[in-house]
């Protein structure tokens, strides 16, 4: 048996486990605590162990987990798996840009002080792609950074190591995409400049390596 067959067998087995009586299931608050990593680890593990093996709890867990993971991504808390999951990042960028294009709401990420507490002092905290990321060229690139209070505009720049700007775009949002053909494979640095009434603030330069497409 392969890992894939094991996963299939597990999916079938858990799909069949749907408790008619939910008395033994953890409550919604326990599921939420597990999703938010609150409370003793032993209890969280027990909650997750049940939720992942119970089809009814799994649905509830996925709903709460998706909201929490989205919240953490939006508020800039560490979400390492999103950083590493390129296909998701691209899908997310496309869907977010569509949503933003619908109307106002560009301040969505910008309100509570708690949301902007982290990041480089006096600068901009760049979130995605992570510093030193290696990605395949030939696909849209998503860039995300933390909001700067009072910023009227952000300018994203992608430069060569010797400082030549290869791509640039301006936005009022805290994310931007570059088209698939915007950059050739190579070694780049990227940074964001925020224009505020008090002047300009910028993120540290982050390294981005674009790999050439494999031969067909």
């Amino acid at each position, binding site marked *: 048996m*392969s890992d894939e067959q*094991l*996963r*299939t*067998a*597990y*999916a*079938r*087995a858990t*799909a*069949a486990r749907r408790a008619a009586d939910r008395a033994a299931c953890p409550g*919604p608050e326990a*599921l939420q605590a597990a*999703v938010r*990593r609150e409370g003793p*680890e*032993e209890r*969280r*593990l027990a909650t*997750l*162990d049940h939720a*992942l*093996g119970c*089809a*009814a709890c*799994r*649905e509830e867990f*996925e*709903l*709460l*987990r*998706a*909201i929490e*993971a*989205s*919240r953490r*991504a*939006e*508020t800039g808390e560490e*979400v*390492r*798996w999103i950083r*590493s*999951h390129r296909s*998701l990042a691209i*899908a*997310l960028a496309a*869907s*977010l840009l*569509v949503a933003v294009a619908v*109307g*106002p*709401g560009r*301040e*969505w*990420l*910008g*309100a*509570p002080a708690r*949301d902007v507490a982290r990041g480089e002092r006096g600068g901009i905290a760049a979130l995605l792609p992570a510093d030193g990321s290696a990605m395949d060229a030939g696909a849209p690139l998503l860039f995300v950074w933390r909001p700067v209070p009072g910023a009227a505009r952000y300018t994203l720049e992608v430069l060569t190591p010797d400082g030549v700007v290869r791509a640039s775009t301006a936005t009022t949002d805290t994310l931007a995409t570059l088209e698939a053909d915007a950059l050739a494979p190579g070694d780049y640095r990227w940074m964001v400049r925020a224009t505020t009434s008090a002047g300009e603030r910028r993120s540290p330069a982050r390294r981005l390596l674009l790999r050439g497409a494999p031969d067909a």
Partner: protein
Amino acid sequence: MQSPLPSTDSLSAALEALLGRFAAMVRSVGARHGLADADIDEIVQELRIRLWRAGHSGEQIGLLGASYVYRAATSAALDLIRRRRARGGARTESVDDHAEELEAEGSAADAIAREELERHVVAALDALPLSRRTVVRLYLSGYEREEIAELLGWSEAKTRNLMYRGLADLRARLTEMGVAWGDR
């Protein structure tokens, strides 16, 4: 006494933009693990009502922070779960409705063999220590290692260690049960 509901075009546009962004984000994150659109739609509708009733202006809606919106969404999701449990129902489309896609063609003997394998997998999993079992369940449910580390609050090294040990235990137990292990 409830405050009068705001009803300007700008409010409506701001609200829909905010909800559109929220839905797109949650949908993107949840889709990988089978979160149903129906669930997201239900939360969005609940969120729409809550924000509308809060009496924000269009400008205020546009300035709402992510923390506020997600707090309201989490509260709406918990209420939804409580309501469903209270009426003993589930959502209209299940994560595990996708299990139907897993149904394979085959003879009755194949079906019996599959069911036996499923029983072995469940039994072998249940015998693992809790920490290994949880991480293996997450792996078998399609979570990537970094997602698991994030969810459990573990370092990647600890996650990798427990996952590999757990999977090794699981394979060993399945082998003892007579399940042949290999690439195919």
